[in-house]
């Protein structure tokens, strides 16, 4: 299975990941190489096998709905690229 330059651009868009035009062909070749490795999975009969997400098949723990964390807003905002009046700033979204 091989991916085209257009496929790579589409995937990069889905991931909101900027890639340089001159790197597109190399990514297409690398990803195609990875997909070639994966072909051997198709030879294995996995009908009726339950997909495995946690090695011990542990389910997500629940906890009681109580506050356990302290407010660290100032600490978190101190490392943000741009903040104002306690808000994270991004370029204008709505004209």
């Amino acid at each position: 299975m091989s991916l085209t330059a257009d496929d790579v651009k589409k995937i990069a868009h889905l991931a909101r990941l900027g890639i340089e035009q001159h790197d597109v062909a190399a990514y297409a070749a690398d990803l195609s190489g990875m997909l070639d490795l994966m072909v051997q999975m198709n030879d294995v009969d996995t009908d009726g096998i339950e997909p495995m997400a946690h090695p011990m098949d542990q389910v997500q723990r629940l906890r009681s709905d109580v506050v356990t964390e302290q407010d660290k807003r100032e600490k978190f905002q101190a490392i943000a690229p741009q903040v104002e009046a306690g808000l994270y700033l991004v370029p204008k979204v709505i004209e």
Partner: protein
Amino acid sequence: MYNKTIAELAQGLRSGEFSSVELTAAFLDRIKQHSGLNAYISVTEDLALQQAKAADARLANGDAELLTGIPIAQKDIFCTEGVKTTCGSLMLDNFIAPYNATVVEKFNHAGAVMLGKLNMDEFAMGSSNETSYYGAVKNPWNINTVPGGSSGGTAAAVAARLAVCATGTDTGGSIRQPAALCGITGLKPTYGRVSRYGMIAYASSLDQGGPMTRSAEDAAIMLQTMAGFDDKDSTSVDTQVPDYSAGLNNRLDGLKIGLPKEFFGEGLNSEVAATLETAIDEYRKLGAMVTEISMPTLKLAIPAYYVIAPAECSANLSRFDGVRFGYRCENPADLSDLYTRSRGEGFGKEVKRRILMGTYALSAGYYDAYYIKAQKIRRLISEDFKKALSEVDVIMGPVTPSTAFGIGEKIGNPIEMYLSDIYTIAINLAGVPAMSIPAGFAQGLPVGLQIIGNYFAEDRLLNIAHQYQQVTDWHQQAPTGF
């Protein structure tokens, strides 16, 4: 002083032979002297001396623990409050962690001294430490070769005696492979044994932190501090932590070792294979029984891993968006440009490759064919391990197909680099614990022996490793000049 074990150093601190401040200063000097290895991203000199002073006070008060005053280092994937935590990436070059990882908290509580943060492949994605934004790390055994990855800075630092011991993380072999290539001892615990809280995520169902040390005896001490249930990690397993040092001296008579024939076939360097055979003979002399076993699904580990790990990586790394922390591009035109350029400029090539692969594997129309298929195969692999480990006590085999390869040799060919993880990644998929211990040399470079055990059998692995280290001295050898 640099060659002493944790227990010997703890003794020296208590007898007054040296103070923690003196010990710490000596290691800080060594780090400066050998900065050419590029093992450290940040050296936290002031903090280290401050912690050493506090440790000396604890020692004087008599409320010290075994690790109190011992200079260690953290892989730069563990968040350290108030200290830059980069994960080897430009994306986090300006990131001062606002909290401590649970592992870091535990070492602080024990009174260990942190010398600094260690170099690593970017976001732990790599097998050679060459994907780090901060440059390649050199293997102290031969500075033209790689130390392995992703915990390459840790392996180089421990081998070169630039820290007594240090932390690593292992998603597909990132503790064991660099441990093997640098001739040190590395343990990847059972998935869920060590908290992942504050350990920057790559592939959450596979990531596991563990100790990297010069000996199994030291690894037992380090793991004792690291292991345990953590409410802050949703996949942490709530099971009792045994005394890892208690059984180190147990004899190995009757130990059943299985050697999967799939591990010793084509692709394994013949000198590495011969070195491993000698190591396994040593276990026979210690009373072990060795049998050949077969694990037919091992060959499926690479394809399954390179679907699952990138899929989880693409989801985990979506948090790096240039809004709340980390790198932000200059003058974004709009929000979409902000996301796309911040991520495009902040991530390196290998990280981008895996985000693209994972995004593709999870996209509509491909999810079942790739992601679900890989997770089904993951179960088959784990069943193979369960079956094998019901017949034998431990599985042994190589860690790497060859000794350390040259810097620049494989970085241009990602698929070839992925294939160098062939003996380690199945273990992460199954979630069982495994160690790499120094087992000799081939072409003048260290060879690692892999020991794989059942879920939560870390104490047994440490015992088996320690017994070998009682009758061999590979683990005590230091690279020339260090």
